[in-house]
C-alpha cells in the first residue's frame, strides 16, 4: 500500500508554527525555532499542514514502508 508522509523543506521554513496548530496528530514541533520537524511515526499524510503552510514548503511524499 502506498503511504504518504509530510516532508518539510527545512531551508525555506520560517518556523512560524502554523503547521503545528493544524496537525490532528500533534506530530509537528519546532524544537529549536529554526524549522519544523515532523514525527514520521505519527504522521498519517493527511496534508493539512501542506495546505496551511504560508510558505508552501511542506509536501507529501510517498514512503517505502
Amino acid at each position: 500500500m502506498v503511504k504518504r508522509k509530510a516532508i518539510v523543506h527545512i531551508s525555506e521554513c520560517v518556523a512560524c508554527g502554523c503547521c503545528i496548530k493544524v496537525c490532528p496528530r500533534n506530530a509537528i514541533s519546532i524544537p529549536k525555532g529554526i524549522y519544523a520537524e515532523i514525527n514520521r511515526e505519527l504522521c498519517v499524510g493527511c496534508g493539512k499542514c501542506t495546505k496551511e503552510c504560508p510558505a508552501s514548503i511542506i509536501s507529501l511524499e510517498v514512503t517505502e514502508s
Partner: protein
Amino acid sequence: MKRKKKWYDFLWIVSLTYLILGFFNILFAWLGLLCFFIPLLIAIIKGNKAYCNKYCGRGQLFSLLGGNFGLSRKKDIPKWMKSNYFRYGFLIFFFLMFFLMLWNTWLVFDGVKNLSTAVTLLWTFRLPWHWAYHGTLFSEGVAQFAFGFYSVMLTSTVLGILTMVLFKPRSWCVYCPMGTMTQLICKAKNRTTP
C-alpha cells in the same frame, strides 16, 4: 481529534483591541512594545520561537480572517517573497524605518521638531490622527513615539492583510521582521550546541 483551545488561542482579541485603542488614544501604542520584546526575550532566553508558534495574536487574527472568514485566496506565495534575500532585506528596511522613527522621536524630545499628530501608513501616506491625541504627561516626544510606533503596527497589519487576501492567511509570517529576527537568534543560539 480536535486540539483543545488554550488561553493563548485567544490572544487575537488582544491584538485587535490594540489596533482599536489606537483610534481612541494614541498613547496605547506603547503597549505594542510587548510584541517586540516578548518574542525577542523568548528567543534569547529559551532559544525557540514559542511566540510565533503559540502566542502571536496577529498571526491568529490573520488565520481567523483568512481561514475561518474565508478572506484569503489561499494561493501559494510567490517564490521571491519567501527567499532569504527578501526576508532579510525586509528586515533591514524595517530596521532602518524604525530607527528613522526613533530619530524623529528624539528630535521632538529635544524640542527641535514639533509634534506631528499623524500616522504614516506604508512609510508614505500621512493620515491625520489628531483625534486620538489628548495631551501627554511628560514630553511631547512620548506622544511622537506613540504615533510612530502605531504607524509601524498599522502598516504591518495592512501589509499582512494584503498578503493574507492574495496568498495564504498567515503569509505575513513568511516575511514578518520579528519572525525573521527571532529565527536568526535561534540559529545563532543553537549553532554552538549541535
